[in-house]
Structures are given as C-alpha cells and as structure tokens.
C-alpha cells in the first residue's frame, strides 16, 4: 500500500512533468517565433576564404593575391608553356612546328590553319586571359581602397598589376585584333563592352606600362627575377614601340634596360641562357614547387620517334647554318634509325630535378638588343644596329654581320629573331605580321593559309553572350 502511494506520488510528478514539458516545447517554439532565433542561420566565414577587404589590409595577403596572377599566367591562357599556350599553338600555326598527333584535335586545327570560332581552345585563350585581367583590376581597386598598406607596397602592387594588365592586353590584341580593354571589375560594364581599334588598345597598353614603370622598383623583389621590376615594364614597352614603329621610343626604352649593366650581364655561354639563374633574363615565371621545371620542356621534348604530338618544322631546321651553336644547343635530334626529327631544346628538364634548374622566361635581354638593332637601323644608326645584332650572333658562334645598309640589317635582324626566339611566345607570328610578311612567307609552306588567318576568331560563345563584340573577325 505504501508502495502504491509512493508510485502515485511519482505518477503525479510525472504527469506534472509531461505537462510541463509539453508547455516547454510549445514555449520554445513560440519563443523562437517571437524573439526570432534568426541567428541560428548566421555562419562565419570559412577558414579557406578571406573577405576582399581584409586581403588588402595586410601586405602578405595582398602579395598572395598578386602572385596568384603569375601562377595563372604560368598555368593557362596565352602565355603558358603548356600545349594550349601560344608558344606551341602559334608555332604550329606558322612554320615553326609540325604536328604529328591526332587529326581533328585542337592542335591539328592550329597546324592546319582551320580554326573555327566555336573551337574550345580559342575560348579558353580568351576567357583565361580576361580572368587574369580581372584579377589585376581587383588588385588595382583593392590597393587603391586600402588604408593599411604602406605607400611603397601600394606602389609595387599597383605597378605589377598595371604591368600585367598591359601585358595580357598586348598578347590579346596581337592574336585577336580589336579587343575590349578592361580596366574595372564591374561586371555590369564589362559584360556589354565593345571592341576597341588596335591603335587605341596600344595607347592604353602604353599608358599602363608607363605608369607601371614609374611605380615599380628598380630592383627585383626577392632574390630571383620572378617579379616584374621597372625594367621589365620598360622591356615590354620597348617591344610595343617597336611594333608601333616608334623607333626612337623603342630604342630609348631598350637602352634603359640594357644600361642596367649591373643587373643584366650578357652571357658568355649559350647553354646558360635558359637556366633559372641567367643574368640575361629580365622576367621569368617560377614553377609551383622547387624541383619542378617548365611546362615548355614538357610540351616540346620527346625522346623517341616518331614524335607523338609535335616536332620542329623541317623548314626551320634548314635555316640554321652549321656554325650556328643554337642548332646543337637549342635543338635536339631524335631518330628511329631511318627518320630524324628535332625538338626544341631550350628548356631541357621535363621532370623534377630536386632543385629547379629552369624557369619559363617571358622577357630576356637578347630581345632588347634585337629591338634596339632594328630601331637603330631604322633611325640610321648603322654602327649601333650592327653592334646590337652581333650580340646574339656572337653568342651563337656566328661571325659579325656583313650587312651594311639599314635594309640589309633589318633583314638580318628579322632572320636572327626567327633563329633566336623560335617557339617562344609567338614571336615568329608577331614578327611576320608586323612586317607584313605573313602571306608571302606562309602561303608556300602552309597549304591552307589565307590572308584572314592573320587574326584568330573571336570565340563564338563570347559573341553569343555579348553581341556588342560583333562583328566577327573576317574569314570566320
């Protein structure tokens, strides 16, 4: 009996509990409605992301945003040394490389000059380039808005971003002709832009580079030449003035670089030119990890014949004279016993070497000498032009030039450029184009070459998304 009373008490207690709980639940739900536990759905920023504002409040993170652009340039878009970049694609497009891979592939279409506006390789070049430009613009805007960065750091980041913006637009306009020049991150503006005539694009590139030259330090940031300095910007400016046939400016800009004799020392040995420590290098892209080497070597080098994708065009091999040391140093023959093929051997290391040996060079002093040689020839400075021309000839083991007239010198310089810069970032294509020799030179070696091939097509997908980009380049 006592037991049951106890139980009864418990039961009451429990009933009381149940009711209380019931009310409690109702109350919890209601209280949520009333007080609004909205905050439950607020989340903090994940550890893998930083707000854009914070990035530019600190030198280290702002720097991380800047260097990321260099990794992008190294990995994709126009300047990558991989098979999708212009070093190999424009080599195939002109008379530098022969294609041995699968017919119908993207590379085959470059090789056969049968590109279409719908080819994904074309839109990849376009979109990665503008993505790199976006990142540069984001740096410029972020740095401008920053209160915490020191003036010195601001100048450097701004200078680098302006340099990158000019650099990418330079390659874009040489490949696609009239293009939009993008100077903001505002998608509303950028999604309806029109194309700009090439000369206006060049004006803006020059403006950006001149500004960059003012902002960038004269010394390299860090121990290696992997960040642009003032002379990097000047070197590109020299090239642009050359393309614009502004001989005085071209000559001055290249002189400003070459006069930095403490930084840029002309090598004595051809085999050192493409090593990472070369003092003839103005700017190069370092690999992701120490020990890795260049994408160029991965793309061009093969060890057994027949080659499975590409090899040096026989036409190019024939141009090298037997004394030319570059033939042995920068080309390599591969044979299967009956046939012989050559591959570009400027960059030699395909795989990890423990500590990196080669970086991908974007700008080097040999070009500055040849720019100045050409500009001086046009200016009438025959002696100076010959002196500059002989720099690369000497290093290649060739005799001093026998050219005497400006015209002869210019012809020699252009030949020298072909031998010196083969498979390097489209030099051949750009040189033929700017000197008006595309059709005469390529018609005989490229059966499907047509005049309109001087420009690549604007990607079809871009024309669909932004009709303001119309019209398409002629011939597509």
């Amino acid at each position: 009996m006592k037991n049951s009373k106890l139980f009864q008490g418990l039961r009451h207690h429990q009933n009381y509990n149940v009711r209380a709980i019931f009310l409690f639940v109702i109350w919890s739900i209601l209280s949520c409605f009333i007080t609004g536990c909205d905050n439950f759905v607020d989340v903090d920023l994940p550890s893998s992301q930083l707000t854009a504002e914070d990035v530019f409040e600190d030198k280290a993170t702002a720097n991380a945003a800047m260097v990321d652009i260099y990794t992008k340039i190294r990995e994709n878009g126009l300047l990558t040394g991989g098979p999708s970049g212009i070093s190999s694609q424009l080599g195939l497009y002109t008379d530098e490389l022969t294609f041995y891979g699968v017919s119908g592939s993207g590379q085959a279409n470059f090789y056969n000059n049968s590109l279409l506006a719908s080819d994904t390789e074309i839109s990849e070049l376009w979109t990665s380039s503008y993505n790199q430009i976006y990142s540069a613009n984001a740096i410029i805007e972020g740095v401008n808005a920053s209160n915490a960065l020191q003036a010195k750091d601001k100048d450097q980041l701004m200078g680098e971003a302006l340099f990158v913006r000019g650099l990418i637009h330079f390659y874009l306009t040489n490949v696609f002709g009239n293009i939009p020049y993008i100077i903001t991150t505002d998608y509303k503006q950028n999604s309806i832009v029109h194309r700009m005539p090439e000369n206006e694009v060049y004006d803006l590139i020059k403006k950006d580079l001149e500004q960059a030259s003012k902002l960038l330090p004269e010394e390299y940031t860090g121990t290696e030449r992997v960040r642009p300095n003032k002379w990097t910007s000047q070197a590109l400016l020299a090239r642009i003035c050359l393309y614009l046939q502004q001989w005085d400016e071209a000559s001055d800009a290249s002189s400003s670089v070459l006069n930095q004799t403490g930084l840029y020392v002309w090598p004595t040995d051809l085999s050192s030119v493409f090593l990472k420590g070369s003092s003839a290098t103005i700017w190069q892209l370092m690999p992701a990890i120490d020990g890795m080497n260049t994408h160029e070597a991965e793309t061009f080098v093969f060890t057994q014949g027949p080659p499975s994708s590409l090899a040096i065009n026989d036409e190019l091999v024939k141009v090298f004279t037997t004394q030319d040391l570059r033939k042995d140093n920068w080309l390599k023959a591969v044979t299967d016993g009956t046939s012989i093929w050559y591959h570009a051997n400027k960059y030699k290391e395909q795989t990890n070497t423990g500590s990196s040996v080669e970086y991908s060079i974007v700008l080097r002093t040999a070009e500055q000498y040849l720019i100045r040689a050409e500009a001086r020839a046009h200016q009438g400075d025959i002696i100076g032009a010959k002196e500059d021309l002989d720099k690369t000839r000497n290093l290649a083991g060739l005799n001093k030039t026998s050219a005497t007239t400006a015209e002869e010198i210019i012809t020699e310089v252009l030949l020298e450029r072909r031998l010196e810069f083969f498979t390097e970032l489209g030099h051949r294509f750009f040189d033929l184009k700017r000197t008006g020799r595309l059709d005469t030179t390529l018609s005989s070696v490229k059966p499907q070459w047509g005049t309109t091939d001087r420009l690549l097509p604007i990607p079809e997908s871009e024309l669909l998304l932004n009709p303001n980009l119309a019209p398409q380049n002629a011939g597509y």
Partner: protein
Amino acid sequence: MKNFSFCKGREVLWYAFISTMYLTCPDTFAKPTTKYSPTQQQLQISGTITDGIGALPGVTVGIKGSTISTITDLSGKYTINATNTDILVFSYIGYKTVEIPIGSQSIINLEMKEDATDLQEVTINAGYYSVKDSERTGSITKITSKDIEKQPVTNVLATMQGRMAGVNITQNTGMPGGGFDIEIRGQNSLRLDGNSPLYIIDGVPYSSQEIGSSYTSGNMPAQNSPLNSINPGNISNIEVLKDADATAIYGSRGANGVVLITTKKGREGKTSFSTNYSNGYGQVAHFIDLMDTPQYLAMRREAFANDGITDYPAEAYDVNGTWNQDRNTNWQKQLIGGTASYTNIQSSLSGGSAQTQFLLSGNYNKETTVYPGDFDYIKANGHFNLNHESLDQKFKVTFTTGYTAQFNNLPSVDLTRDAITLVPNAPSLYDSAGKLNWENNTFENPLAKLEGKIKGQTYDFLANILLSYDLGMGFTAKTSLGYTDLRQSQMNLLPSTTYNPAYGLGSEVSAVFSNTVNRNSWIAEPQLGWGYTIGKGKIEVLAGATFQQQKSNQLVSAAEGFASNSLIENPASAANYLILNSDETLYKYQAFFGRVNLNWQGKYILNLTGRRDGSSRFGPGRQFATFGAVGAAWLFGDESFIKQNINFLSFGKLRTSYGTTGNDQIGDYQYLDTYSTSGYTYQGVSGLQPTRLYNPNFGWETNRKLEAALEMGFLNDRISTTIAWYRNRSSSQLVGIPLPGTTGFAELRANLDAEVQNSGMEFSLRTVNVQGKDFSWISNFNITSAKSELLSFPGLEGSSYKNQYVIGQPINIVKVYHYTGLNQTTGSYQFEDYNNDGNLSAADDKKIIKNLSPKFYGGFQNQIRYGNVQLDFMFQFVKQQNFNENFRTSMPGTMVNQPEAVINHWQKTGDEGPYQSYSNNNAEKRAASIRYSQSDAAISDASFIRLKNVSISFDLPRDWTKKFFCKISLQAQNLLTITPYKGIDPEFRSSGYLPPLRIITTSLQVTF
C-alpha cells in the same frame, strides 16, 4: 554579436533535446485496456492460415480492442487465448485484414486474400505525417520493396525508372557506381544543377550534393552521387511528393519535389532469417554500326585525293603503309565488349514481440566492368532497426541505423569514345611478347589508359531516432533526431605506364590526384501533433521546428614524381605535392512548420501546410522566407447520390492544391565578396584568388504549384485511375547568369526576373485483369506529358541569355543551324544564311529551335501470377528528340572511324549524300562539318520503347520445403529496345560514355 546569437540558437535546441529526453520516460501506469468480466468464457483458439497456395507465416492474430496478439508460425499455425465474445483480427501486410467473431468456435482456419484491390486503405507516408491513400489531398506516388526487389540494380533512382508518373529518370553511364539524373515534373530552375529533389531517408535529409572532384571522376560524366550509398535492398518504400500540398511543408527545399525513402523495419513474430543470393552478368546491349577497314581506307584515300595530296603525310599511319592495311578490328568488341559480372547477397534477421521488434540486415554487392582488365566496384552495407512501444502504447521509439562502405577500383577513363573512334586497321593491342603494343611509337594504345585507375572508398553512416509520446487529450509529442556522416577518399592514379614509352618517362612523372571529402550533418525536429474528432468531423494539427546543420570539407591534392610506381598510392613519397583545393563549408538551416487537416465525414478534406525557412546560404536580411499550400479533396464517390446512381464506381475523388515552395540549392557563401586559396604557390606563397563576382543581393526563388486531379476506382477498384494536371511556375529564378569572358568570370549568382512554367498531365491506370485462386494478372500503366515554357523574361534581348532562350519556348531548347543539303559543286554541307550576310555565324544563323525535353514518357508494368510462378515485366517508353550520331563525329575523312552510313557521301554532281565529300583537313569542309553537328541534321527522333525489366520467380512448393521458404528467380534489366535512334543508346544523353548495360541475373532466396 553573431557568436552570441548562435549560442542562443543552440539553447533552443537544448530545450528540444531535454524535452525529448523527458518524454522517453514511459508512463508505466497505464490503465488496463481490456476488462474481463466473469461471465465471459476463456477459450483456447487455434488454426492454420493459408494464402490459398500454402501456409502463411507471420500473420498477426489479435483480439480486437486489446493488445493481446500472436503470430502464425512457419506452417501458418497459431494458438491464442480469448473469450467467446471476442473478435479475432487477422492482419498481414499486403493482405486484406479479416475480423472473425469467435462465438463457439475453437478452431478458426482462414484463407487470406491478397490486398490487390483494397488500395484506398494503404497508408501513404507524407514525411511529417502519414495519410490514408483515400484521404490524401496531395500528389504522391509510391513504389514498394515488391517493385524494387525484382530489379537487378544497385542505385535507388534506378528502381524508380519508368514506374512513377511525373518522374523522369535517366542513367548517365553504364560504369558501376555511376549516376542517374532525376527530374520531377520538369526542369524548374534555369540552373542545371539546381533541379535535384530533396531526399529524406527515414526522416533525415540526405544531401545529394556531389561529393567528387573532377580530378578523380574523369571516368564518368558527372561526379559521384552520395545516393550510391543507399542499398535498394533495405528500402521498404519510396514516396515521391510532387505537388504544393505535399511539398510545401518542406518549404524552401521542396521546389523540385521530395523523395522519401523509408527503410525496412522489424516485424513482430518468430525470429526469421532470410537470405537472397543473385549472380549474373552485364553487357553493352547495342553497338554502333561502324565502317570496316576496306570502307574506312577507301574513305581516307578519297579524302586525301580530294585535298589534292598524293604523298600521304608521315602521321597518316593508317594509309601511308605504316600499319597493316589488312587488319580489321571491331574495337567496340575489344574495348567495351566484355562481360561484367554482378553478385549480390542480401541477408536479414528479423523478429520481435508486440512491444519490441528488430531487423538486422547485411548486403554485399560486387560488380565488375565490361573493359578488359581487372576492375570492380564493391558495396557492403549493414542496416539495423529497433522499434519499441510501451505496454500502454503511449510511448514509441524507432531507431534505425545503417552503414555502407563502397570500394571502387575502376579505370580512370571510359574507353567508349576510343571504341567508337579508333580506326579499324589500328595495330593490335599487345605485341608478340604480350606487352602493350605501341607499334614503334605510331600507335597511342588505348589500353594504356587502363593502367590508370580510380580507386577509392566511401563510408556512409546514417542514424536516426524517432520518439513519440501520446500526451493524452489527442496530443502527441514527437521528436526526430538524425545524424549522417559521409567520408570519401578517391584517388586517380596515373602511373608513368599510361604514357607511350616514346616520351621516355619513368615513375618521376607518375601522378596521383586525391580527393577527400567529409560531410556530416545533424537534424533535430521537435513536433507536436493534435487530433480531435467531433461528430463526423476530424481535425489534425501538427506544429514543429527544424534545426539542421551540415558541415563539409574537401581536400583535393596532386602528387607527382615517385621513386617507383609501386609507391604511387602514398603521396608522402612524391617529389611534388600540391593542394589544389581545400574547402570547408557550413550550412545551417532552421524552420518552423505546421499542418492543419480538416476532415468532414471522410468526404470533404482540407489540408493546410506552411513553413517558415531560414538558410545560411543567403546574405543578412535575406535569410528567411515563408512558404505554404492549401489542398482540398472531395470524395464524391462516397456521396449517396453517386453510390445509388453509378454503382460501377467504387471510388471517386477530386483533389486540388495550390501553394509555394522554394529552392536554396545554390551552394554556400555565395553572397560573400571573398578571396580564396587557389592551390598554387609562387615564391613559397600560396596564391589567393577572387572567389566569384560579388553580388550580395540575391534571395529566395519561389515556385508556385497548382494541381488538380481526379482519382477513380471502378468495379470494386479492380480498375483504378488517376488523372492529374499540374502547373508549376518558378520566378525570381536564382541562377548563375552566364557572363561574357570579359567580366573575368563565367557567371554571376543572381535572381533573374524570368518566369518559367512547367505544366503537364499525368495519367496512371491500374487494372486487375484476372484475379483468381491460381491465376492473377495486374497491370499498371503510367504516362506523363510535360511541357515547359519561358513565360516572361524582361530584358532578355539585352542579356547574355539572348541567344539561349526564347520567350514562349521551353527552356530545354537548343538553337541550331538549318541544314539545306549539299553544295553540288563542292560537295560540302550547306546551311541557311538567315540574314543573308554571306557568313554563317551562331548569333545570326542558328535560328532553328529544337526542344530536347521528352514530349511524353511512362511505363507499362505487368504482374502475372500462375500458381507458384510469378512473371513481372515492365516497358519504359519515352518520346523525345536528341542529338544523334551526327553530333560530334569528326569530319568524314579524318583519321577517325565513322558510322557505316557515312559511306553514302557526295562524290559528283547529283549525289544526294547525305554525307559531304571526304576530306582530311580542308578548312572549309571542317567548318561545314562542325556546323553540321550543330544543325538540325544532328538532332532526330530518339524515342524508344524499352523492355526495362523482366523478372520470373518460382516459389518452391511448401510440401518440398517443409521448414523453409524458397524462391528462385531470373531477372533482367534493359533486355530489349525498340528505337529509330542510331546512336549507342537513346536513353542516354552523355555521348562518349558507356551506355546502360543489359543485366541478367539469377537469384535464390531462402527464408527460415
């Protein structure tokens, strides 16, 4: 501030937890429910229950109005103590419940009838509540384990294919572990990745967000779907909620429908053990007719002749004499013509008392591939369920947990594309020494790709507990708690042996990509229900809250350069190691929901549901939104004027619903302006890149659904039918607006002022054609006709969608060139130049609109039983257009094999083709060929009727197998296809991947 308020949210959770903990203490002082009066006479009743063929074990025999019950044993026998005034209730799932007053009987034998026609009594799971099918106001379709176990498939979506009206499912690869695409009532969102339904397993939302990485899933068209972890053998039933009435209670996540998966539960009765072993094989059902060597070489020679080339180039190994021109290989047979084996073992142990039941089951499944080489996909699964109910039936608890492990060891690429494109006189795969043949570096041996593997494990844990307590006075408190934990690690191994030795590459270039994903989530849903009956009226009220959190992280890395290929699975021994992506996301979700159901006389039913949702996926101030629906049903068949006048009508119901649902499948943190790590380093600094274009101003998209349906049963429900009409309108479309490359990004996340309408008719018919003792035949037919339309899109002309969508047209359209025949001078394809500018451009001349959504689709299912033999077969049919074999074939004449039909090509003036003259690399021909693949000539009828599933089973007679039950069956999937389509498979939209396989298995099931 934010941290503080987060804690506040957690406090609320604690209330819920604590309250449920209290509730778990059962009230042990239940009143006795059965009263014994001395005048009643105690009897022992016994008998045997059969189903007309044999004994029926497991039948529940209870006394009406009491908790006393027993179960029939293996020979169908039972004994129970009762009084002469009691009524015995015999019930068994799938059979009609029978009530027999005892009276003076002491032996009651019974032959139970299958519940083939009594459809209205079936209970339908609507998620937070369940409802009698007849009283349902929403649109819900259902399949049960009976449908599932007849199919030799391992993916839960495969089991639903063709069986549900309004649900369109397509398989996207025949690779084991591959995925399926599902669309419930069309594509509501313009975002292709925003159309997945919400999956709920036993009350716990199961994220179907892809878990893979493109670095480690190159062998499939889509990344791994977590749904692979669900073992179809564990599923008791799947319900798909379609209309607003059914889905609005899921609020923001219900726009694309809800798939409710209920797993098998333990059953009262003697402990029984059942095991099922199946074994079979799978093969590619259909190969494309391709050119043989003489046809192919004739094409190549003609192509070079047309191009004016007499000296075949060095790389034209097929025609220049490098390769043997007498070889003729059917590469489809060699590369994808193998036989995949299929093994499945499923065992379960179940039993329990009236208070407590359990189920323990295990499953092992192994599939191999059709490729040459040793590849497999293994899935092992354990499942446990425990139900308990207090003696007074007030307190109930259901606990279910499952663990699935998947091990895949698959090729890193799909060889289907190679099988179709490799030239027929290509050299043999192996040299005389049995090694991979590279034919002196002239042959990229496709088998080398199989040296690369995708290997990985996925572990998936799922647990949920449902507690409910009857508070009295019609109140029931319920809490559902769930937890999921998924871990995947995948490696894409690319050893140096995948490369041609001509590259001279050793293990220093061997690379491995790894992807590790961890995702866990918890959910707590306290609920309170109230039910009350006044006279002929019944009211049910439900209120509840949801708190959910999902945390995931992903690490994608690449390692390259190993001392030896045998070390490749260990990234620590790599020379280079790169983190490609390291990401963590937190998703939090909170909601309050409710339902009020008013039922008058079981004839007039009104159902109101609503939900207020908050999601962390939206920016401050835009996190909350409210959704709701109203549904109504009128059971006109129960009206006396119908009953009296139309006596062949056994059931009649009209129902309608209208409401709103939302969609928050947009990914996490999209509203923030951030930088994230890019995965690449430079000068030892890890790069930071802008994550996305910044737009904080996006909010919920809404989906308004309207439905009307008529459900009828004739001749005692031997014929029953549902006709439903629906219309979904989605607005404030939340999309990734495609942007031109000049913006730096491909898209911008924003609400679009566009409105999309999906409407359609669904018809399903079930007929019991023959219902006899030895012979029965039941048919099910469903057909869905669906249409989508872009209703409005202000500013379409000026937007980046200008060339993609057309107002008034479906959203799944493509714009293509109009093919006008062959140019009789050049033999090239010609197209309509709409603006007559002499130039063909996509923007101006792709004017033909083709709709790639299916016009209608459905299934026809038959279940025939003769004595011990049961035959089931199902046809699936789809009426649609799709890209055909002319899409993405290379130009005829290049070094790529072509469909045999391509021999009909232009050679001289007057030739009709249909294919253009051959060429190896002519730029104009190439342009024409590419445009041809983007023209109306590359789209044709891809309709099909497919014998999707056949199953024949035979129950061994009980006289042979006294102590156990044994069933032998033969099952087949994708057995036969009738189609005008000439590609590899009409179902299938991902070209270049392995099509769904034809699978045939035999199985043996034994139950003790």
